C-alpha cells in the first residue's frame, strides 16, 4: 500500500520562506528538490510497526519566534533546564526558530562556532554546505525528504583542529505551539583531533494538540576527533517524534551517543554511526521508558568500513502499561573492515502484562577477520526478586522501583556527565510515576 504524503507546504510557499530567511540559492533549490522527493518517496519501513498508522502529518507552518535577551524570559516549561546557564554556551529553539544563542567567550576565542543553522549558513556557508544533508540524505524516504525541505531553527557547532572543549555545550529545543513547524536540524563538525561534548533536551509545552517533530542530527568527526552527543527527549503525549541521528567518523575518531528516550508520545528514532575511518570507535547508550499506549521504535546501527574499527551499542528499555517497543540493533561490517569488532545488547523489562517489547539484534558481516556479538532479552519483573526484597520489609512499590532502576543503572551509571546522570534520573522517576 502506498501512502501519499500530504505536503504541509507547496513549492511556492517554501521558496518564499527560503527567500524571507535570505537563504542562498543552493539551499532554496535543495529544499525544493527535497519537497518533490517527499511527494514521491515512500515512508520509511519500520521493523514490525506500521508508521503509516501514526499521526505524523502535523507539521503546521513556519512561524517566527520572538528572540529573548536573557534567560529570565524563557518559558516556564524549560526554566529548570537552563538554570544557572547564564555564562554557559547555550542555544534555545522554540518552535520554528532559535530564540537565544550564547557562546562562552573563551570558546569563541578558540574559534569554536556555536550558532543557529541559518546564521551559520550566512557566516560559514562553505563549511555548512559541505556537510548539510550528506549524512542523512533527502532521498532516503519521505520523512528525511520532508525534513530536508522544512528544517528550521537548528544548531551548528564547529570545533576547530586540535581544540579540546571540556565544558559541555547545551541546547534546548521546545515545541509549545502546535501551529508551528518543529523541525530542528543539528549539525556538528568536529575537526581533526578536536573534542567536544554537546547535550540537548527536546521538550514540549502545555499544548495538547498534535505536533510532529521531524528532526535530524548530523555529526562529522574528522580524524582523531572525539564527539560526545547526549540527548534527552521528554516531549508530551501530543508530540510524535521522528528522529534520525547519524555520525560519520574518520580515522581514529570516536563517537559517543547517550540517548534518553523519555517521550510520552509515539517515537521513532534511529541512531547510526558510520565508522568510515580505520581505528574509529563508536559507543551508543540508549535508555528508554515507555508508558500509556505509546508505540516506540528504536534502532541503533553501526556500519563498519574502517579497519580495526569498534562499535558498542546498548539499549535498555522499561515498558509500562500498554506501551509497545520494537528495539532493533544492526551491526554491519563491510568487506575489508578487517579486525573490526561490533557488539550490541538490547534488553527490555516489561512492568505490566499489556506492555510489549521486542528486541531484534541483527549482525550483517561481510568480512571474516572480525569479532561481533549480540545479546538480547525481553522479560517481566522477576517475582522471586520482588519476594526477596519484600522479605526484608521493603514494600512492593519500592521493591519494583529498585528493580527498575537496577535494570537501567548499569547504563545510567556509565554516563560520564554527573549533571546529565541526575537529570536523566529525575526524568526517569517522572516517567515511572514516582
Amino acid at each position, binding site marked *: 500500500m502506498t501512502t501519499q504524503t500530504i505536503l504541509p507546504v507547496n513549492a511556492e510557499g517554501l521558496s518564499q520562506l527560503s527567500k524571507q530567511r535570505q537563504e542562498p540559492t543552493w539551499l532554496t533549490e535543495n529544499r525544493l528538490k527535497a519537497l518533490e522527493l517527499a511527494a514521491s518517496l515512500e515512508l520509511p519501513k519500520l521493523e514490525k510497526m506500521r508508521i503509516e498508522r501514526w499521526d505524523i502529518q502535523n507539521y503546521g507552518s513556519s512561524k517566527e519566534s520572538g528572540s529573548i535577551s536573557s534567560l529570565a524570559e524563557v518559558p516556564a516549561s524549560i526554566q529548570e533546564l537552563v538554570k544557572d546557564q547564564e555564562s554557559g554556551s547555550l542555544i534555545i529553539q522554540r518552535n520554528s526558530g532559535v530564540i537565544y544563542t550564547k557562546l562562552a567567550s573563551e570558546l569563541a576565542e578558540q574559534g569554536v562556532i556555536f550558532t543557529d543553522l541559518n546564521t551559520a549558513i550566512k557566516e560559514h556557508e562553505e563549511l555548512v554546505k559541505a556537510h548539510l544533508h550528506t549524512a542523512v540524505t533527502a532521498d532516503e524516504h519521505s520523512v528525511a525528504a520532508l525534513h530536508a525541505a522544512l528544517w528550521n531553527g537548528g544548531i551548528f557547532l564547529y570545533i576547530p583542529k586540535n581544540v579540546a572543549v571540556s565544558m559541555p555545550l547545551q541546547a534546548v529545543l521546545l515545541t509549545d505551539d502546535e501551529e508551528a513547524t518543529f523541525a530542528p536540524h543539528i549539525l556538528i563538525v568536529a575537526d581533526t583531533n578536536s573534542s567536544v561534548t554537546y547535550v540537548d533536551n527536546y521538550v514540549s509545552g502545555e499544548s495538547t494538540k498534535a505536533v510532529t517533530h521531524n528532526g535530524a542530527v548530523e555529526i562529522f568527526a574528522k580524524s582523531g576527533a572525539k564527539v560526545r552527543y547526549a540527548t534527552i527527549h521528554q516531549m508530551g503525549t501530543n508530540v510524535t517524534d521522528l528522529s534520525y541521528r547519524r555520525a560519520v567518523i574518520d580515522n581514529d575518531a570516536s563517537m559517543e551517543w547517550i540517548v534518553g528516550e523519555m517521550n510520552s508520545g509515539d517515537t521513532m528514532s534511529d541512531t547510526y554511526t558510520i565508522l568510515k575511518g580505520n581505528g574509529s570507535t563508536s559507543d551508543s547508550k540508549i535508555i528508554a521508558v515507555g508508558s500509556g499506549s505509546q508505540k516506540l521504535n528504536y534502532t541503533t546501527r553501526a556500519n563498519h568500513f574502517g579497519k580495526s574499527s569498534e562499535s558498542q551499542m546498548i539499549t535498555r528499555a522499561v515498558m509500562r502499561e500498554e506501551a509497545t517497543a520494537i528495539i532493533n540493533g544492526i551491526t554491519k561490517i563491510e568487506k575489508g573492515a578487517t579486525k573490526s569488532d561490533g557488539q550490541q545488547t538490547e534488553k527490555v523489562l516489561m512492568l505490566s502484562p499489556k506492555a510489549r517489547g521486542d528486541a531484534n539484534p541483527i549482525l550483517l558481516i561481510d568480512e571474516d577477520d572480525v569479532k561481533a556479538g549480540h545479546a538480547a532479552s525481553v522479560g517481566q519483573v522477576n517475582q522471586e*526478586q520482588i519476594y526477596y526484597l519484600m522479605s526484608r520489609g521493603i514494600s512492593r512499590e519500592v521493591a519494583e522501583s529498585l*528493580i527498575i532502576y537496577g535494570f537501567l543503572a548499569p547504563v545510567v551509571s556509565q554516563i560520564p556527565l554527573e549533571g546529565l546522570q541526575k537529570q536523566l534520573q529525575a526524568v526517569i522517576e517522572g516517567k515511572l510515576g514516582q
Partner: protein
Amino acid sequence: MATHFTIEGLKAEIEGKEILKGINLEMKGGEIHAIMGPNGTGKSTLASALMGHPKYEVTEGSVTLNGEDVLEMAVDERARAGLFLAMQYPSEITGVTNSDFMRSAINARREEGQEISLIRFIRQMETKMKELDMNPEFAHRYLNEGFSGGEKKRNEILQMMMIEPNIVVLDEIDSGLDIDALKIVANGVNAMRSEDRGFLIITHYQRLLNYVKPDFVHVMMQGRIVKSGGPELAERLEAEGYDWVKEELGIEDETVGQEA
C-alpha cells in the same frame, strides 16, 4: 513485650501438593530451636511458608507473632513485624547495590523523614561487615551478583545484623560453607542472641549446632515434626543418623515427594 512466636496446625501446599501436614511449634525470645531432618521432609517449605513465598499456599493453621496474625500479612509486613528469613538461595539483583538495598530495608522500618543518616548507615554497615570478615567492596557490589555461595550466606547474616529482627529463621545457612566461614556465621548468630530474639535454625547437619547451641531440637519427616528434644537429640542424630527415628516411629519413607 517478650517475643512469642506460635505455629499451630500449619498446612501448606505447592502447586496443589500438600507438603506441610500440620506443624506445631512454640518459640519465645531468647530461645534457639533447631529443625533437623533429611532432605525432602518439608523443612525449607516451612521457612518459605512462614515468610509468605507466593508459590506456597497455606491451607490450614495459624502463625502468630506476639499475638498478631502473621498469615494475614503481606511478605513485607511480616518482615516489618519482626520476622526474618535467611534464605538458602538468595536472589541476585543486578543494578541494585548491596548498600542501597540494605538502606531501603532499614528505612522501610522508619517513618518518612526519620530515615537513617547516610553516614550512620555506612558506619554501621562497615562495622558489621568487619565482624563477618567481609570485603568492604561488597557494600558497593550489586546485590548477590557474582557472590560465591559462602558470600551470599554471609550477606544474609549481615542483613540480619543490620535489621535486628525478633524471629530469625535460618534456612540451611550452613550449606556450602567451609569450616572457617561456618564459624564466622555462627559468631554472627551468637552475637545476636538476646532475650527478645528467637532463632529457628533449619539444618540438614549437626555441624552448625556445634557452634550455635540450640535449646530445642525438632526432627521433621513427612511434613510434620515427629520428634522433639534437647541438644542431646542433635548429638544422637549426628552419631547414629535418622534411621533409628524412622524405626521408632514406623516410618519407611521420610520424604513428602517433590520438595527438595
